[in-house]
């Protein structure tokens, strides 16, 4: 079942090119395109795509506001930022507002497809890191200062399970300490409940 996507970029050549290219891939189906933030919000509300590919550097309604508004008008639509740069601040701000993550325009096409599929599955992705929905949830709570026992209680899962998530998070984020996890969580903007 192909992932239904929408493409939003103010550069016509980029937008048309992505449309043409992605339409030839069986993993995805392009259901619509838009050239600015406001149209993107409209499109999301009307077509309810699985994933929106959103360019951040657009005039008019800025990318961050577009993310917030799309989350409201189409809560089941995942948002994947298409970025020209690899800016951590950029990434944090986007994820804080509810984006699934960021893909660089310099990535090879297979990586873009993989990112679209991951976002559709509810994963959070930033360059080099993919977190499952549960991992994202746990990391967010750790970043907000919750203890493992507390997390286990709130999520109705076993303490051992929470500890397992801590382990996989430490591995993925390449840190050995809880403080490291807190730092990563805050860096990704997960400490703000969304």
């Amino acid at each position, binding site marked *: 079942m192909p992932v239904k996507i929408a493409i939003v970029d103010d550069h016509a050549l980029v937008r048309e*090119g992505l449309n043409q290219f992605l339409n030839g891939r069986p993993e995805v189906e392009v259901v619509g395109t838009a050239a600015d933030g406001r149209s993107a919000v409209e499109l999301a509300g009307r077509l309810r795509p699985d994933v929106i590919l959103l360019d951040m550097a657009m005039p008019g309604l800025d990318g961050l506001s577009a993310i917030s508004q799309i989350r409201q008008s189409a809560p089941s639509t995942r948002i994947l930022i298409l970025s020209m740069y690899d800016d951590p601040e950029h990434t944090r701000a986007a994820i804080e507002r509810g984006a699934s993550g960021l893909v660089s325009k*310099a990535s090879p096409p297979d990586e873009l497809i993989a990112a679209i599929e991951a976002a559709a599955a509810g994963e959070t992705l930033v360059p080099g890191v993919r977190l499952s929905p549960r991992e994202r949830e746990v990391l967010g709570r750790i970043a907000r200062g919750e203890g493992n026992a507390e997390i286990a209680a709130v999520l109705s899962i076993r303490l051992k399970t929470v500890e397992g998530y801590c382990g996989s998070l430490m591995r993925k984020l390449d840190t050995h300490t809880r403080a490291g996890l807190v730092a990563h969580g805050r860096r990704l903007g997960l400490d703000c409940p969304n």
Partner: protein
Amino acid sequence: MTEIRVVLADDHTIVRKGISALLRAAAIDVVGEAGDGRELVRCVRDLRPDVALVDLSMPRLDGLEAVRRIARRHPETRVVIVSVFDDAEYRICAQRAGAWGYVRKDEASDRLIDVIRRVMSGEVCLPVDGGAEETQLDALTPREREVLQLIAEGRKNAEIAQMMNRSVHTVRNHRARLMRKLGVRSGSDLVRVSAERGLIRLGAPPKGLTT
């Protein structure tokens, strides 16, 4: 009809693949791709394409230098700049480096394909103020560019006619068309505006010229 052979250079891989797909759909043959300036020059050297589409903001040997090298070493390959930047300065630099055309990324793919075809037929497509209408006017044929350069060097119509092996009547027609295309009413304005737009090379006047 032989297909136009194109090499495409842009460090944004996804964007490059997209443009490539658009060109293929328009029966333009994308024979090679490059992600940086050095790769681009190698590609052109090895593949000798008809056209090279070049994004200026690439790493490792910047776009303009790559364009200069291609213009110098492989003049049969015509360079069209494809850029997000919309600056007269960039277009002038592109023209001086030897580019034949300049297309912005916020223009539709029809425009890119149109410019590729025009450049292949010998037209220079370097719009100054943006917009297709402007380009219609500003696009100079190679013959017109030749006449313009000679006018800029201060040569009289008779001299130009002799150098180009044409009649004075023809030279006057070219001059008139140039003035119309560039929107000027005098010979000196023609030279001034052309210099501003980077359409001519202004250097020391040739010997024997009386001022």
